[in-house]
């Protein structure tokens, strides 16, 4: 598939260093080619050097970075370019599509203004009218519905997916031959992700542009990449066509990376929990935000969910489905407009503050982002000991023994005296789990506990989670947008959409034989790390759209 004669981008022995005396090398000599009309994926975990490598193509590295080797883009040596040449190269020859579509648009200007500005930045000869026409053309190219109307809107009025389309349109303004997409769909829901990937793949394959896709998501790779390069700790581990990498990975690292990706249906059948008791009973829950002067927004609209003791209940939905709000309502961090929430048979809404505090002790919580959910001024041991000393009233040696026991349970013994910033994301999340189960809660609420982590780390955290749950037997409300993760971990599943329950039932039944149309759509959009399955799905989707 590679155009062997003149690749668009040729990188040889690229080395990137940071700092001086001693310089710290983060990329250790990688080779990479991208030809027109092909999508090349650069895959790796965070810290593997994949973004740094891609940014060095545009020479957009932070100050103090040293780049050696050779980068030839469209026949020109990027490393020898002057500031002026670089400016004209960026956008004209190669353009960047960033990870966070909303943050990368300026919130105080309209979409139209920003796209027009991108157009005129590269061809200042265009009149205002022509630039506007070109802007609308670009928005149409990335399949934004009603582009004329969008031109007048501000970024906050658009959804994340629409903003990413605008970002792509702006990157296309000067018709660059190379698109560098840095995790372009990580911040988006799966159904939106599929659409954005369609756009990218079409821009690449059909219009002859080269696309360099940086991602950690093997499902995305399987979906649109022609060739794959796997990076690990700054070095190229393996490269090949997508099919060959997925079918017969040569290196252990690649194999481990692929194995870590959760897949629906990999886990065998599991027994359905049977018990009349309820660790958590939510009925008719309504949560409304806003009010007074603003329009009220109904985030949760009459939801019934229950968790039996020892049951792992998955709560799945896209952003805006109200899944996190339900979790927050249980711990009293969201207003309950109507309905009932009972933990262990005791109503949380009608309790006195004192009773509420007691009720909270029966609930453990694990948050999405472990970097912000740990007190930065506590060591690991202090964090885990906090509920023991403050709520249970343990002292001295008893605390030490319990902390040691808990840290062993999450496989973190030996890290007791470290501060949060000294730990990796996965380790921090395990500290959070240890803290959450310290009081032996009967109910654990986990709000997207692994979505901020790399896949290989995610697998490890899920293992710990499963072990701890099996040992302590708490009921768990596991909130996630990732169906595969839910499938690996949970017993029962509730699917949410726009604040309402769409489907509810046993894991195998919901995830393999869904009865609701929405669940089917969600399952079809979730990328699977298998190129042939993805190709089949894409063909179906495009046939359906035509």
């Amino acid at each position, binding site marked *: 598939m590679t155009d062997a004669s003149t690749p668009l981008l040729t990188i040889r022995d690229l080395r990137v260093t940071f700092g001086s005396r001693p310089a710290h090398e983060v990329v250790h000599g990688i080779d990479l080619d991208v030809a027109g009309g092909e999508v090349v994926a650069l895959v790796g975990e965070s810290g593997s050097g994949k973004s740094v490598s891609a940014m060095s193509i545009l020479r957009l590295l932070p100050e103090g970075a040293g780049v050696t080797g050779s980068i030839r883009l469209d026949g020109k040596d990027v490393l020898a370019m002057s500031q002026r040449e670089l400016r004209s190269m960026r956008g004209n020859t190669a353009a960047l599509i960033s990870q966070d579509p909303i943050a990368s648009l300026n919130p105080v200007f309209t979409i139209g203004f920003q796209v027009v500005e991108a157009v005129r930045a590269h061809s200042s000869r265009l009149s205002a009218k022509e630039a506007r026409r070109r802007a609308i053309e670009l928005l149409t190219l990335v399949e934004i519905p009603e582009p004329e109307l969008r031109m007048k809107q501000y970024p906050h009025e658009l959804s994340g997916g629409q903003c990413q389309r605008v970002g792509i349109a702006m990157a296309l303004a000067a018709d660059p031959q190379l698109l560098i997409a840095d995790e372009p769909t990580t911040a988006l829901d799966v159904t939106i992700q599929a659409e954005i990937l369609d756009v990218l793949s079409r821009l690449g394959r059909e219009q002859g542009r080269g696309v360099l896709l940086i991602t950690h998501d093997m499902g995305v790779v399987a979906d649109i990449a022609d060739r794959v390069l796997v990076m690990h700790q700054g070095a190229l581990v393996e490269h090949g066509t997508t099919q060959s990498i997925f079918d017969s990975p040569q290196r252990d690292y690649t194999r481990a990376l692929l194995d870590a990706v959760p897949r629906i249906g990999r886990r065998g059948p599991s027994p359905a929990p049977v018990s009349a008791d309820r660790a958590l009973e939510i009925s008719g829950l309504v949560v409304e935000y806003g009010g007074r002067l603003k329009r009220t927004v109904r985030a949760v609209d009459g939801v019934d969910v229950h968790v039996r003791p020892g049951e792992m209940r998955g709560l799945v939905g896209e952003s805006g489905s109200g899944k996190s709000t339900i979790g927050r309502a249980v711990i009293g961090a969201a207003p309950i407009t109507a309905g009932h929430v009972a933990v262990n048979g005791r109503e949380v809404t009608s309790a006195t503050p004192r009773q509420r505090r007691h009720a909270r*002790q029966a609930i453990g919580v694990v*948050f999405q982002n472990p970097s912000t959910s740990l007190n930065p001024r506590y060591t690991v041991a202090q964090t885990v000991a906090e509920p023991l000393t403050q709520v249970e009233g343990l002292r001295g040696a008893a605390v030490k023994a319990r902390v040691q026991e808990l840290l062993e349970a999450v496989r973190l013994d030996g890290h007791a005296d470290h501060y949060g910033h000294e730990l990796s994301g996965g380790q921090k999340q395990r500290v959070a789990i240890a803290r959450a189960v310290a009081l032996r809660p009967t109910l654990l609420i986990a709000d997207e506990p692994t979505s901020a982590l790399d896949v290989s780390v995610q697998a490890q955290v899920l293992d710990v989670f499963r072990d701890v749950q099996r040992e302590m037997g708490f009921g768990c409300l596991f909130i996630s947008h990732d169906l595969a993760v839910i499938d690996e971990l949970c017993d029962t599943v509730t699917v949410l959409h726009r604040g309402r329950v769409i489907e509810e039932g046993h894991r195998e039944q919901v995830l393999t034989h869904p009865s609701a149309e929405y669940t089917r759509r969600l399952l079809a959009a979730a990328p699977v790390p298998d190129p042939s399955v993805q190709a089949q799905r894409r063909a179906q989707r495009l046939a359906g759209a035509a």
Partner: protein
Amino acid sequence: MWIATSVLAVLLLFALFPAFFAGLFGNGDPRACDLAHSAEGPAPGHPFGYDLQGCDIWANSVYGAQSSITVGFLATAIALGIALTLGTLSGLGGRVVDWIVQRVTEVFLGFPFLLAAIVVLNTLGARNVWTVSLVLGVFGWPTMARLMRASVRSVRHSEYVLAARTMGLRLPRIIKRYVLPNAIQPVFVLATISIGMVIVAESTLTYLGIGLSSPAISWGLQIAAGSRIFQTAPHVLVLPSVMLALTVLSVVAIGEELRSAFDPRERR
């Protein structure tokens, strides 16, 4: 760092044992003045010369350290205390408490500082180190309080505070261990800078004739007196100004160092 510490240590020693240091050059009494030498330059035994009254400048500057440094620290401590209390109250309290504290803060912020100081100091009558510090402290807190409020607000909504609440911890514990230590940093930095500003403000008040007054001795008084005869005898201004600048610089440097020392994220 150690330069700043030693400079501040020396100045503190001046403040604690003025008699010893003032006497280093043989003329230790700041009040032993001889009008015959009015505003004369350096002479043996008087390395920095005489001021307008014919007093030894070195002795005066050493004695001045006491009141200037006391005013600086005391006024800042008063302001910091008020700011932390009100800022935390406003940041954590409900809508009503926040509204009241905010309006009070704005009133103080909108008050012309000098006018207020003139009125209060004239009413108080006695103008010594304590009253001047009190006035400077009581009118110096609003900026710090606003910063504290903003800082508490951002920490209050962080997930670790939510995590602490879901653990069932009591409110005082949450404030003491989770909110304050993480919110206090920027306020602390502002406070160290404000020590310098207060010392300068004290000299401004003195210059206007409403701060400390003779026979009290302070850098502010010296600078005020010196500035009136700056064109004929510039040397009168030099020593107290240098001491003031050194104090401010070393306090700011030490404050910055303390901040990073107390932050576990910057510990190695």
